[in-house]
Each structure stands twice: as structure tokens, then as C-alpha cells.
């Protein structure tokens, strides 16, 4: 078989057949089509599980290389990453949350550190509000007023003492927000259908690693 057939045509054929099959399975209630669709879904879930393993292999390969070569400025952090990953994986596999090391690391290191990083957003958002929400032009003024109304609605105290904030914020959410978001959602759906059609017609080759120039 030619190189082009193996690299381009065969993957393209598989994608087109599977896409048509899954669309048919969704819309047509025929038992044997549904059965094959079911097998494909199970296969996809198995592939998803393998992807997690692939991620581990890629991480070990990348960071193990840095440790092995003693890459300046990197090998130490790669070593820490590999050590913590191994400890979490092994202790988790041994006894999940009944394993004291895993339970300790999960409850006292992993979750607090993730939440701390997420909480830093509060500082960034407040700094950004300080610098960005200014009455410097009509759009920025409208933006600032809307932001303050929504903040007033989200703060129980302000909502209670400034009752007008609730209907104002509801109006913002239900009219301008919904109107503009629906337009965007419909545009996105149109774009998604276009990509599906291109895929079905064999015009979308990016997912099999072929760029426009290579076509």
C-alpha cells in the first residue's frame, strides 16, 4: 500500500465511516447500528483510560530525561515532580484514602495547594478591577456599571440593603446576556456543523496530523 494511502486516506476513511455511524446511531433506532455504536463508545472510553497512562509515560520520559542529564535549573524540580508523582501513585494504588500517606498528602498538601492557587484569582481580579474598571470611555463605563450591579447582586448584604440591584442584575442576565449569548451560541453551532461537514467530506485533516501545506 502506498504511503499516501496509509498516512492520509486510511485514517480519513476510518474517521468518515465512524462519524457517519455515530450520527446514524443517534438518529436511527436500529438495533445492530446501536450495538456497534455501543462497542465504539466502550472502545473510546478504553482509549480515554489509556490516554491517562500515556500522560504518565510522557511525563516520566520528559522529566526523567532532565534528571538523567542533570539539566541545569530543571533537574531538581523534575526530580521533585517524579518523586511526588510516584509516592501519590503507589500509596493511592495500595489503599486509596485508607492509606495514611495518600490520605495525608491528599487532604493536607494536594487540595489546599490547588485551592490556594485558585484563590489567588481574587487578588488578580481585584487588581485588575482597580486598573481596568474606569470611567474613561462609554464602553468602559457601561462595563463598569454592569460589573458593579452584578457584584451587588452576588453580595447578599448589598442585595438586601439595595433591593434594586436584584431586578437590575436579573435584567442584565436575562435580556442583554441571553440575547448576545444566544447569537454567539448559534454562531458556534454553525461553525461546529461546518467542521463536522468538512470532516465527513474528508477536508479536515488537522486531526490526523496533516497540515494545509502537506495536503
Amino acid at each position, binding site marked *: 500500500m502506498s504511503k499516501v494511502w496509509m498516512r492520509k486516506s486510511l485514517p480519513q476513511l476510518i474517521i468518515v465511516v465512524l462519524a457517519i455511524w455515530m450520527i446514524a446511531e443517534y438518529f436511527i433506532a436500529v438495533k445492530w447500528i446501536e450495538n456497534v455504536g455501543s462497542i465504539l463508545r466502550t472502545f473510546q472510553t478504553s482509549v480515554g483510560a489509556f490516554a491517562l497512562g500515556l500522560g504518565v509515560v510522557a511525563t516520566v520520559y520528559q522529566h526523567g530525561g532532565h534528571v538523567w542529564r542533570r539539566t541545569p535549573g530543571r533537574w531538581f524540580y523534575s526530580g521533585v515532580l517524579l518523586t511526588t508523582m510516584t509516592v501519590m501513585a503507589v500509596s493511592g494504588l495500595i489503599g486509596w484514602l485508607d492509606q495514611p500517606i495518600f490520605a495525608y498528602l*491528599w487532604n493536607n498538601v494536594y*487540595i489546599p495547594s490547588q485551592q490556594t492557587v485558585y484563590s489567588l484569582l481574587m487578588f488578580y481580579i481585584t487588581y485588575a*478591577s482597580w486598573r481596568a474598571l474606569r470611567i474613561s470611555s462609554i464602553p468602559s463605563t457601561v462595563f463598569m456599571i454592569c460589573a458593579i450591579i452584578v457584584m451587588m447582586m452576588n453580595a447578599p448584604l448589598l442585595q438586601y440593603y439595595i433591593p434594586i440591584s436584584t431586578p437590575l442584575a436579573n435584567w442584565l442576565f436575562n435580556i442583554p446576556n441571553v440575547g448576545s449569548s444566544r447569537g454567539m451560541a448559534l454562531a458556534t453551532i454553525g461553525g461546529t456543523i461546518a467542521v463536522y461537514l468538512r470532516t465527513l467530506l474528508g477536508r479536515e485533516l488537522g486531526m490526523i496530523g496533516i497540515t494545509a501545506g502537506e495536503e
Partner: protein
Amino acid sequence: MSERLETRVRKSWLTPERAHYIIAIGIFILASVPLLTPFGLPLEISETTQAYYDTVETLKPGDIVIYEWNMGSAQFGEMGAPAIVQLQQLFNKAGVRIIVFQPTSEAPGLFDANIFPALDLKGKVYGIDWINLGFYPGGAVIAALATDPHQLFLKDHYGNALSQYSLWNDYRTGADCEMIIFNEVGHGGSYMTQFQIKWGTTIVGATVAAQYADCMLYYTSGQLKGVLNSLRGGAELEKLTNNPGRGLSAMDAMSTLHLWLILVVVAGNVQYFSKRRREGKR
């Protein structure tokens, strides 16, 4: 005082560095003080939370509900309290059967360590009244849950065969599910496609504050019957179900921090206009 020195003094004592320090200290104080000594500030129930509560209350004994816990640990501070009260409301309802489903790898750990210990099961028996499917990866997993769950889901989160549980045997397709309740960074779009369009399944859920506006799109169209707006929505549901928890205790801090944010915006504008006035005079 020379004119040059006077200009330097008047220029602004509020440099960006100082402003950053003041903002940070303000956040720290206004977040920690209300958490340590709650003031008990008033909390109003929003329309979408009331709709959520009323919809869940329509569940009858024997109904099967799929509860999706789809959050990572970063969002647990925001979405943990809504998850606990969402599940508690379900466990409070006699006869309602719950299938817990977690399509994110981090979700089972959070469920086991942080959510499950906070729940009162109200006598519900595992396998009969509720089951935990645990983590199943892949985008097609929701489609499988809707159309042919017994093909893909063979074991529960604890490694036991699902076929031994009466609840799982009663659930054959999405048609057997009365309601989907989600807790995710989104609007439950996959459930609308795979469950609601085919079987008209009722969908309600909780989402992060940043996605609340997106959910309103589907709430106003009637596809979502109720929405909890992040921690705030969780606190409101705690109040409605008379089940005070982490959500309500965080509401005072929510109020003070939003007030601080508004003050920061006002102060930023005052500084901006005074700077413009100074520059205009010069």
C-alpha cells in the same frame, strides 16, 4: 515648600505598589474576619435557586436521579458546599434513588474525602437506594450512560460488580432516569444532548459563578429547570433545606469581599480623575 517639592508630594501617595499592598491586606482582613466571627448578614433566595429547590422537591419515591460530581480540587472551595447540600437534599427525600457519577479523575477523591463524610445518608442503603459509579474517562461516557449503561459500566467506584445491585438493574437506559443533577463548570450540555432531547429528562444543576451567565441561557429557554449560582447558590439551598453548612458560613465573607471590590473600583476612579485633573492643570 518649593513648587517642585509640592508637586512631588501632591503627585500621589497612592503608588501602584502601595495600592497593591492595601488591596491585598483588605482582602485578607475582609475574608478572614467574617469566617472567624460570622456576622449573620441577611441572605435572600434568588429565583434560580428557588426553582432548583422546587424542581428537586417534585421527585417521588422510586424515582432515579443521576447526580454528576464533575469538579477538580481547585474549584472545591467554590463548589464543595453546593455539592454537599445538593446531595443532602436528595438523601433527605425518602425513596428517591441516586446514581452518583464522576467523569473527572480528581472527582472521586474529593467525593470520598470531602463530600461523603459530610453527608447524612438518612438510612439509604448502598446498592438499593444509591450507588457510586466512580470515574469513567472519555467524552462518550455520558452517551453510554444514556443509551447502554450496562455495556460500559461494569464495576462501581469500589470495584464491585454493578450487576449485583437492584438499583443498577432497574436503570437500563436514560428513559429510567427522572432527573439529572449536575455540579460542573458548564451548563450540563452533554445531558441535554444525550438525555433531554431523547427522553425529556429534567435537568437542574450547580455551576461556578463565571458560568452562571451561560446557564441563564438555558434556564430562560426552559432546558434547565433550576440553577445554583456557585457558593452563593449553595448557601441559599442550605437555607431552604434548613441544613446550614459551609456555604452559609462563607456568605458574610462573600458580602464583605464584594463590598471591598466595589470600593476598590470607586477608589480607582477617584485616583484616575484626580490624576487627569492634575495633568489638565499642568
